[in-house]
C-alpha cells in the first residue's frame, strides 16, 4: 500500500514538473505522455514484449536448473566445490557488456545469445544462497538423521533440500530482478526485436515516450514474476512463513 502511495506521489511530481516547466517532451515525457504512447504503440510494444519475456522466462528457467544442479553438485562433492567455486565467482567478473556483442557476432541475432547472457547473469544469485543453505542445515537434525541410519540421499531428501528451499526462492527472486537488465543488455548488443531493442531504437528517433513505455512494461513484468514467486513460495514452503496463531 505504502509503495503505491510513494509511486503516486512520484508520478504526480513528475507530471507537475513536465507540465509546468518548459522541458521538451523529447527530453522528459510526462507520465500521461508515456501512457498515451503506450496505448498508441500497443501492437509494437506487445510484439517486442513477447520476445523479451521469452528471453527472460527461458533464460531464468535455464538459470534455475543450472543453479540448483550446480548447488547440489558443489554440496555433494568437496572436490567439485574446491575446483569449480572459484571459477563460478570468476564467471561473474566477466564483463557482460563485452561478451554480449561477441556472442551476437558468433551466434547471430536470435534467441540463443540472449539466453546465454540471461542464464549467465542469473544463475549465480541462485547458486550461492542455495549452496549455503544446503550446507547450513541444522546440525541437530543432521545428527538425528545419522542416528537413524539415514543415507546421504535421505539426508538430502528429508533435511537438506527442504532446508534450502526458502533460500532457493530468495535467490530466484534476486535473479528475476536482474533478468530484465540482462535481457535488455543482450538485446542492445545485437538484435532485431525485443523491448531492449525498441528502447535503443526509440531514443535516437526522439520517441522518448515509447522508450519509457517499454521500461514501464518491463518493470511490470518483473514485478509480476516476483509476485508469482512469492505466492509460489507461500504454497511450496509454508513453514518459512508460519502463520501467527495459538499454539497447541
Amino acid at each position, binding site marked *: 500500500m505504502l509503495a503505491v502511495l510513494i509511486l503516486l506521489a512520484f508520478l504526480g511530481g513528475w507530471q507537475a514538473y513536465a507540465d509546468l516547466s518548459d522541458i521538451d517532451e523529447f527530453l522528459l515525457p510526462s507520465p500521461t505522455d508515456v501512457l498515451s504512447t503506450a496505448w498508441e504503440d500497443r501492437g509494437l510494444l506487445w510484439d517486442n514484449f513477447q520476445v523479451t519475456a521469452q528471453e527472460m522466462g527461458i533464460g531464468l528457467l535455464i538459470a534455475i536448473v543450472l543453479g540448483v544442479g550446480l548447488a547440489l553438485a558443489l554440496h555433494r562433492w568437496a572436490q567439485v566445490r574446491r575446483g569449480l567455486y572459484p571459477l563460478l565467482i570468476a564467471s561473474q567478473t566477466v564483463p557482460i557488456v563485452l561478451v554480449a556483442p561477441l556472442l551476437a557476432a558468433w551466434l547471430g541475432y536470435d534467441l540463443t545469445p540472449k539466453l546465454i547472457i540471461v542464464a549467465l547473469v542469473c544463475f549465480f544469485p541462485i547458486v550461492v544462497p542455495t549452496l549455503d543453505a544446503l550446507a547450513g542445515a*541444522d546440525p*541437530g*537434525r543432521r545428527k*538425528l538423521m545419522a*542416528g537413524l*541410519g*539415514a543415507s546421504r540421499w535421505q539426508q538430502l531428501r*528429508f533435511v537438506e533440500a*527442504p532446508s534450502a528451499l526458502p533460500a532457493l526462492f530468495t535467490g530466484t527472486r534476486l535473479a528475476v530482478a536482474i533478468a530484465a537488465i540482462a535481457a535488455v543488455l543482450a538485446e542492445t548488443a545485437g538484435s532485431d526485436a525485443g523491448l531492449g531493442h525498441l528502447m535503443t531504437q526509440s531514443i535516437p528517433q526522439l520517441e522518448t515516450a515509447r522508450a519509457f513505455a517499454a521500461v514501464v512494461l518491463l518493470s511490470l513484468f518483473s514485478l509480476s514474476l516476483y509476485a508469482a514467486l512469492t505466492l509460489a513460495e507461500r504454497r511450496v514452503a509454508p513453514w518459512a512463513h508460519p502463520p501467527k496463531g495459538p499454539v497447541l
Partner: protein
Amino acid sequence: MPAKGAMSSPTRTPPASVTLEKQPAVDLDGVRRVFAAGSVVALDGVSLRVDPGAVVAVVGPSGCGKSTLLDLVCGLQAPDAGTVRSPAPAARGAATGAVLMPQGDTLLPWASALDNAALALRIAGVARPAARERARVELEALGLGQFADARPAALSGGMRQRIAVARTLLSGAGVICLDEPFGALDAITRADAQRWLTATLAREPRTVLLVTHDTEEAALLADRVVVLSARPGRVVADIPVPLPHPRVATDAAVVAVRAEVLAALEAGR
C-alpha cells in the same frame, strides 16, 4: 495430572526378571574419547553396563562428555580406547540398535507431527502410507493423536519434545538415548512431560539412557543414576533408585536420591 496427552496408568516397575538374556543391553568398557588432537579428553576410563529395560540417567557438569557418551552408544562416534557394545541395529543402515534423540528441537519444521513421527520408519525404508499409518497409531496410543496434522511451529515446546520422543520410539530401537529431552522446557511443562514419559515407558518398555543436568529429573525417571565427573568424564557414582512409579518430586525418598546425586556431583568436580 496433565490435562493434555495424559495416559491412564503411569506406573512402571523397574526391570524385573530379565528374560533369557543376562547380557547387558549396553556395555561400555574402559572407554576413552579425545578431541582436538588429544588436547581435550572428553571421557576417560568410562565403564557402564546397562541391563535391558533399565532407565539409566547420566548426570554430570557441563562439558563432561555426556553427549559424547550417547554418541558412542549410538555408533555416531568411535572410542579412542576401550570397547562399546550396543545391540544389533533395528533399522536398515543404522550403525547400532541404539537411537539418539539429540539435544534441542530437532523436529523437521516442514513436516507435520505425523510425518515427523514417521521419519524413522521412512528412513528404514517403510513406504510413506504405511509409515504414516503406524505413526498415527503410535501418536494416538501416546495421547498425541490430536496433534498429528499440526506443523511443529503450531505446537508448544512440551508437545514438540513428546513428538520427538514418539519418533525415537517408532524407530523400534531397543535402546533409546535421550539427550536433555526436556532441558529447554519451563518447570511446569517439564513436570508434565516427565509424567508423560514415565507412562510412555510403562507402555513401551525400552532400555533408556537419559542425559540430564537436572538431578530432580534423574531421581524422578531413572532406575539408576550414573554421575560423571568434570572433564575428563569418569563415572564417580552409580546410584540405584529402587522407588516405584509414579514418583513425586517432593517425596522424601526422591529428595534423598537427589541429595545423594548432588553430593556425588560436588565430589566429582
